[in-house]
């Protein structure tokens, strides 16, 4: 198939030496070995994982809380807030990264000039990595917020009402009823977000280096791949590309593993969720799960 062939082609390339022209030469595992021996490889793998974890632990809960706020009676006019919060999603990623570059630039940046500070937000790498995280949170919030809002809308109001009748307060309602019911959506969000994060490329590069490539101490594994490709080292580039896929699988497995560990304790909730969300586009208004949702 069209979408699988280039992956296979890359796999073959990763065991060969190829300069983009002329013959290819099989080299076995040499490309992989070369990557493992290269210290920047491990730094970039570490950065890739850092960007994923650091932004996910902020953006997923924050988006969830925002969605809860909008569903709650505390807030009016959700039609007004929703598009404004979603706005970062429809802004060009490159454009946004460039705007952030001007906001956080050391000498002339908006942030430093407003606060009268002189922090090297983007050039001190220990700080810069957090600005990348902040950018990822800023961008992802609207997306996951809309996903969670859709998920919350599908939660049967009868269940919530039953919990209120039982005397469950807002916090308890959230953790004992809504979170278990939203479990599938949350798990899905964490996984999709993780898969996307592993192949992060645009934001750290454009924010920290414009049209160039960010320094290995703040860049991701994708940079190693693209860098090798652009200098005509196809074999190592393909090896890096496949390692990226392996990393995706590992990360997904970790998320599933974590979910399984947490899930052991609340099989009751899971059963309700399967009943509620298993069948697509039905269930609104049916009170079937209400009795079971009681913690």
């Amino acid at each position, binding site marked *: 198939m069209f979408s699988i062939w280039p*992956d296979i082609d890359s796999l073959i390339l990763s065991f060969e030496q190829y300069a983009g022209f002329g013959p290819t030469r099989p080299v076995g595992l040499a490309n992989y070995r070369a990557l493992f021996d290269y210290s920047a490889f491990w730094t970039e793998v570490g950065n890739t994982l850092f960007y994923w974890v650091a932004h996910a632990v902020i953006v997923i809960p924050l988006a969830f809380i925002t969605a809860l706020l909008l569903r709650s009676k505390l807030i009016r006019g959700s039609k007004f807030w929703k*598009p404004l919060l979603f706005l970062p*999603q429809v802004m060009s990623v490159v454009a946004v990264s460039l705007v952030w570059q001007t906001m956080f630039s050391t000498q002339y940046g908006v942030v430093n000039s407003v606060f009268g500070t002189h922090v090297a937000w983007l050039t001190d790498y220990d700080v810069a990595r957090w600005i990348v995280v902040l950018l990822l949170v800023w961008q992802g919030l609207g997306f996951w917020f809309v996903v969670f809002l859709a998920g919350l809308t599908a939660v049967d109001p009868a269940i919530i009402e039953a919990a209120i009748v039982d005397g469950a307060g807002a916090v308890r309602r959230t953790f004992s009823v809504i979170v278990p019911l939203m479990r599938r959506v949350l798990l899905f969000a964490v996984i999709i977000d993780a898969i996307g994060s592993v192949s992060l490329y645009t934001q750290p590069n454009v924010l920290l280096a414009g049209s160039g490539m960010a320094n290995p101490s703040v860049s991701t594994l994708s940079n190693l791949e693209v860098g090798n490709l652009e200098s005509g080292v196809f074999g190592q580039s393909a090896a890096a590309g496949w390692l990226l896929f392996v990393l995706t699988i590992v990360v997904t497995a970790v998320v599933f593993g974590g979910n399984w560990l947490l899930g052991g304790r609340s099989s009751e909730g899971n059963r309700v969720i399967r009943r509620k969300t298993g069948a697509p586009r039905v269930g609104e208004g049916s009170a079937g799960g209400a009795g079971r949702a009681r913690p």
Partner: protein
Amino acid sequence: MSEAAVLQRGGAPPAEWARWRTGAASLLAYGVLIALTVASVYPLVLMGIDSLKGDSQVAVNSAGLPHPWTIASYRSLISHGALRSFGNSLLVAGLTTLGAVFISGLAGYSFGKLRFPGRTLIFACLLGTIMVPIQTALPGFYAEFARFHWIDTYQIQIVPFLAPVFGVFIVRQYLYSVPDEFIEAARLDGASEWRIYWRVIVPVLRPILAALAVLEFLAMWNNYLWPQVMASTQNVAPLAVTLPTYTNSVIGIIPLYGTIMAGNILATVPLVLIFIKYQDLFMRGVAYNAE
């Protein structure tokens, strides 16, 4: 909530205390939302303001309003050939969206409603590719396309994106809500498969295809890694790739921030306009992720 309410806290009856608490929570909720909204919107506003400052003014007067207001940045933008890049973005994103929506609809219908050998297996393989990042295929694609001299062309930016697995998947899911009898009836009336697709299926699919179209356009417009590697020459490169390259030709690496901000506006405003017009489609498309 006023000070009076706070003072009453001690001896207030339970109902009033509850009302006070709800009020405070509401206030806090609004505070959080307002903060998040300001953060969401501010970069767009800054973009607009900075694009009217001119290159040197962006540096010396980064936080304030333009003084004087000038459209020099937009002139400079045009002289950097940004209109060509904008056209490239439009062409690539537009054609890919049309093609991808067409193919997603047909393929989703085939996988959802037609019976053919190996259907489940092929679909499983296709779904498996969602897990594979584009980076994995990149060197393979590059090596292959270099052989047909497709590097730095329009087609290399379009053809590989014509069959989005996500699109095929959501169309297939959506078709589960369409009863088979609906299609059988048309088939009994003697309609050909092709006719059934266009006359019966497409009208049903319209909302999801529209949602898919806006999301596909957005994704293509934002594509950066692919065109940066595959099509970075000025003639065919999209705006996303050329924008960060607008630097001072004399000093070299110093970015021309005014020009870039004007370019950012050019890159962002069309999407924001589409978003304002088709807001519900975006939201609905994204919300499919919750199912």
